[in-house]
């Protein structure tokens, strides 16, 4: 079994987990303000495309990342406007956003790069791999932790930052208030809509980063539909982590680990379909241990008993 568990397994896990984690954090902050964002998949896809486009236009990965973030923020504004101002069903909006993103990226690929399926430029520089000075020399740990794209580190840093923001700062406190009981928050003069907009934009930033990690960090190219369901897995990670940044990290890591592990299991006689099932099954099993609050509690909240 030493072929199954090695340094590269964990190293690969960190890479696999990053776009999912970033998107899941984006999902978490939306969930915290009461908007269930099913459109993560689409947002990440737009991020992946615009990162490549930005790199192509600006010739600099860092500017490309900023470009991707701006594009996805713009895109998420549509989500915000239609679901907050026009009070559309947030799930319908999310699903439509996914369709929109798929169509739009394919179309732009054709219109801008004049290619179908994939855009690849071997001269394009992806994100650098950072070697962490001291850590890289530590035997096992160095191999796992060092040598990733900066966005991998940023993702985990963002999770910690978000944990602090939500639970330690005043503004994070108000954000949670706006999500927990919008009517009460409104009655205190907390600008609920503005906070919701902020959260959606923030999730745009995170999904932009997720997309950039996918198209500039993990590989350096864009292919149609390259998110391949990662946005939905992020959604699952959001919920399994109960919209707690640290919980989201844990559930994303679990999924990432199982995914990396299932790749390695493929050699071992099991049909590929079953090894590919593994991450989903394990996530399902994990839910036995990390239960969501019971339906009764949720309902109690929703019905807000008074007197």
């Amino acid at each position, binding site marked *: 079994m030493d072929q199954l568990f090695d340094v590269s397994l964990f190293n690969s896990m960190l890479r696999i987990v990053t776009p999912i984690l970033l998107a899941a954090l984006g999902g978490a902050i939306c969930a915290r303000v009461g908007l269930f964002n099913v459109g993560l998949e689409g947002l990440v896809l737009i991020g992946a495309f615009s990162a490549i486009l930005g790199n192509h236009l600006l010739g600099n990965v860092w500017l490309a990342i900023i470009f991707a973030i701006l594009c996805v923020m713009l895109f998420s504004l549509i989500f915000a406007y239609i679901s907050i101002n026009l009070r559309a069903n947030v799930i319908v909006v999310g699903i439509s956003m996914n369709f929109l993103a798929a169509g739009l990226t394919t179309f732009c690929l054709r219109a801008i790069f004049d290619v179908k399926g994939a855009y690849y430029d071997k001269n394009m520089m992806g994100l650098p791999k950072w070697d962490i000075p001291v850590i890289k020399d530590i035997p096992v740990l160095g191999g796992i932790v060092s040598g990733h794209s900066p966005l991998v580190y940023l993702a985990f840093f963002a999770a910690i930052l978000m944990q602090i923001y939500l639970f330690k700062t005043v503004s994070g406190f108000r954000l949670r208030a706006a999500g927990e009981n919008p009517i009460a928050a409104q*009655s205190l003069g*907390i600008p609920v809509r503005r906070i919701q907009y902020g959260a959606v934009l923030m999730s745009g930033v995170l999904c932009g980063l997720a997309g950039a990690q996918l198209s500039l960090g993990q590989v350096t190219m864009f292919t149609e539909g390259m998110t391949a369901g990662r946005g939905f897995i992020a959604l699952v990670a959001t919920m399994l982590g109960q919209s707690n940044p640290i919980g989201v990290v844990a559930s994303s890591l679990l999924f990432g680990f199982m995914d990396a592990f299932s790749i390695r299991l493929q050699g071992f006689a099991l049909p590929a379909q079953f090894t590919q099932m593994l991450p989903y099954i394990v996530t399902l099993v994990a839910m036995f241990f990390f239960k969501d609050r019971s339906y009764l509690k949720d309902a109690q909240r929703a019905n807000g*008993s008074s007197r």
Partner: protein
Amino acid sequence: MTLLLEMKNITKKYGDFTANHNINFDVRKGEIHALVGENGAGKTTLMRMLYGMEEPTSGSITINGKEVHFHDPSEAIRQGIGMVHQHFMLFPSFTLAENIVIGGEPKRSGLFDRKAAADKVNELGQMYGMPVDPWRKAGDCPLGIQQRTEILKVLYQGADVIILDEPTGVLTPSEVKELLQSIKRLAAQGKSFILITHKLHEVMEAADRITVLRDGVVTGHMESNTTDEEQISRLMVGRDLIPMSRVANEPGASVMHVQNVTLAGAKGAKPLLDNITLTVRQGEIVGIAGISGNGQSELLQVISGLVQPDSGIVELNGKDVTGESVRAIREQGMAHIPEDRYMWGASREATVLDNGLMGHQHQYKKGGLIQRHKLRKVVDGWVQRFSIKTGSLDTQAQFLSGGNLQKLIAAREFAQNKPFLIAAEPTRGVDVGAMETIHGELLAKCKAGDGILLVSSELTEILTLSDRILVMYEGAIAGELSAAEATEEQISLLMAGGKRKL
């Protein structure tokens, strides 16, 4: 006293419905101004406009002589107006301290200083005689504490004019007394209060001036020392009320019997129900008094089959129904007016008709389908008899005022015509006219030979209606009194955990 605030010719329309019509209302510095009226008279609507949650269709609001236009509660808060809402506005997963300081959180080095918040809340609690545990989660607190938290929140915001929309509905008599004392003390210090309540004795005790609303118009303005409860209620209801008369009748056989029922609490905590035994007989009203959170809710849940007891027996009409489903118990002969109309008693999104059907659904069934026409006639009958104000039977329950919804629920359960009725807080938030109707129905049912278990935090209600009174304290029955001998003082003492004293 100086005029602090004035609302002039206020009209508020919702579509083609006028909730407030040309209302003039003012508040002076340091006064307690009571606003009374029937359910749906427009009291809350008027206050929502003052608090910036709604904008008047026409009319003006001036504060300290300056005209103001609020678009948002935060503007009203800045002008020193605070409101304790009729339906609480709390964040259940937040601590009480968080709920109180929200909007003006203390900070330390950029972060939310929860310790300082807790200290401030403790300080505030001491100052106004309303202590709370700042670290408890709001959702875990009894309603009384939640109410207190709401008031502390407004005080924390530094309001000069404090609107209290039915603040005493969930408080025990001693809590009410404390609250009214606090209000009076604060008023003496220069704060002004607008007090909305259906309890006229509270009005008489605390208010300086009184404004009466009926159907969206002002029907009276007076000083409290020149009026009495009869006059107010006449202005409210538009007629004289008939005083309740209770004829004691001889109780018959047991309709409901609870034997040694126990329900464990969370690990390490005291049991929620501690070896409870009680009987309700035919033609008898048994009242249960107690501060909310002492096991009354749990007892009712066990009796009605919503929760299974850990041990003990529940008998209905002589049949052991322990462990039976809610439906089976209801069919065996129970009706139930639940204590919390929004949580247990109704679905806000459903229509009046659908809300009326609950519990009757198997009676109006034919071939699996609902007999709508028959149902419609019946529910319409209830609306007439209890004069429930509703647009139509297809109006969603959420558009009914709380009192009217309560009447609908009561009507629904009376119509069950079962030998045993649980009536939990049957008149909570209900105006005097409707209270008269509901009390009349309860007495009539009792007279007809049915048994009623009445749970109420309203001692007067318990005292006027019950034959026997049980007092619950910490999940156990602390004492039993007969209606003839019981006094408010005795009950209060038992409620507070004092030993039974005859």
